[in-house]
């Protein structure tokens, strides 16, 4: 899933500076799994922020609310009545969630509380490793399930072990780094619903 790491408290505080009523929105999806942006982390972040505001004599208040998924419009519905009561929003979700919030509430400033790091795997509790950069043209079929930048030596060893060394002799087209522009995904079985009408 998406892996994130919370921004330093000072940076978060700096971004919401000047706003009196702040709503910190958590996400019950990936960021809950990587223990960084779920309901519990919203609570701890808000406690830290409140303390910092007190120390600095800042007259701001931060409340929290966690939705099941910030990247899904239906999950944001329950926020609609709440958001109007706040001056700005802080998002504990990944970058996709932050943008979805900003899109739904265009009149409210939305600030990210996380640095979105990677698509990754869970190693231990609280330990996550980057595994994918969403390049848009997966090469794992011929790299023995090892991601290229992770080293050709590992790829060689695994393919040899699986008797698939032929796979690295194949010539492939140069990688198109499709992740250099924002992409939209439409699954094939739904394409007919969204196909542009021909004139």
């Amino acid at each position, binding site marked *: 899933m998406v892996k994130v790491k919370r921004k330093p408290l000072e940076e978060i505080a700096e971004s919401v500076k000047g706003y009196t009523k702040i709503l910190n929105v958590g996400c019950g999806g990936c960021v809950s799994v990587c223990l960084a942006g*779920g309901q519990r982390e919203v609570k701890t972040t808000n406690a830290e922020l409140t303390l910092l505001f007190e120390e600095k004599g800042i007259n701001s208040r931060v409340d929290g609310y*966690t939705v*099941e*998924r910030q990247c899904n419009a*239906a999950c944001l519905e329950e926020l609609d*009545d709440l958001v109007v009561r706040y001056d700005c929003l802080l998002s504990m979700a990944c970058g996709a969630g932050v943008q979805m919030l900003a899109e739904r509430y265009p009149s409210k400033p939305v600030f990210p509380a996380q640095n979105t790091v990677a698509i990754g795997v869970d190693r231990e*509790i*609280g330990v996550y490793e980057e595994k994918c950069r969403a390049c848009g043209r997966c090469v794992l079929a011929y790299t023995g399930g090892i991601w290229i930048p992770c080293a050709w030596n590992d790829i060689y060893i695994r393919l040899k072990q699986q008797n698939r060394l032929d796979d690295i002799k194949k010539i492939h087209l140069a990688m198109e780094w499709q992740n250099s522009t924002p992409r939209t995904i439409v699954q094939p079985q739904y394409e007919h619903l969204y196909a542009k009408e021909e004139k």
Partner: protein
Amino acid sequence: MKKNTKGVDHRKIKNILDKNKAKIELSMKACAHCSMCAESCFLFQARNKDPRYMPSYKFLKTLGVIYKKKGKVDRVTLEEMKPILWKRCVLCTRCYCPMGIDIPYLIRTARSICRSQDVYYRYDEDA
């Protein structure tokens, strides 16, 4: 904040129920217990068709109970719903009901009620 002896703020639950009343009521009335939604849930399939993974079971045993009791549930009851709501459903929204019941919405609303009482699944709690 007014809290009852069992540590549940019923006003918050009532607010959520009221806000969603029409849709919840309609869904509870419309459910024919036909279990046709079961086939569309990958978790039901993956768990050897264990009936406790049926989408209808999941919303009836959680939101259905809360709704019937008009929100007057205690903390133990909410804690018992937690595994149904978080471990037996991933909110993938793939379940399909021919009656048009929005099952993920019902499960989400039940989660939201639990969350309002600080009852939610922590991904490091089984570790």
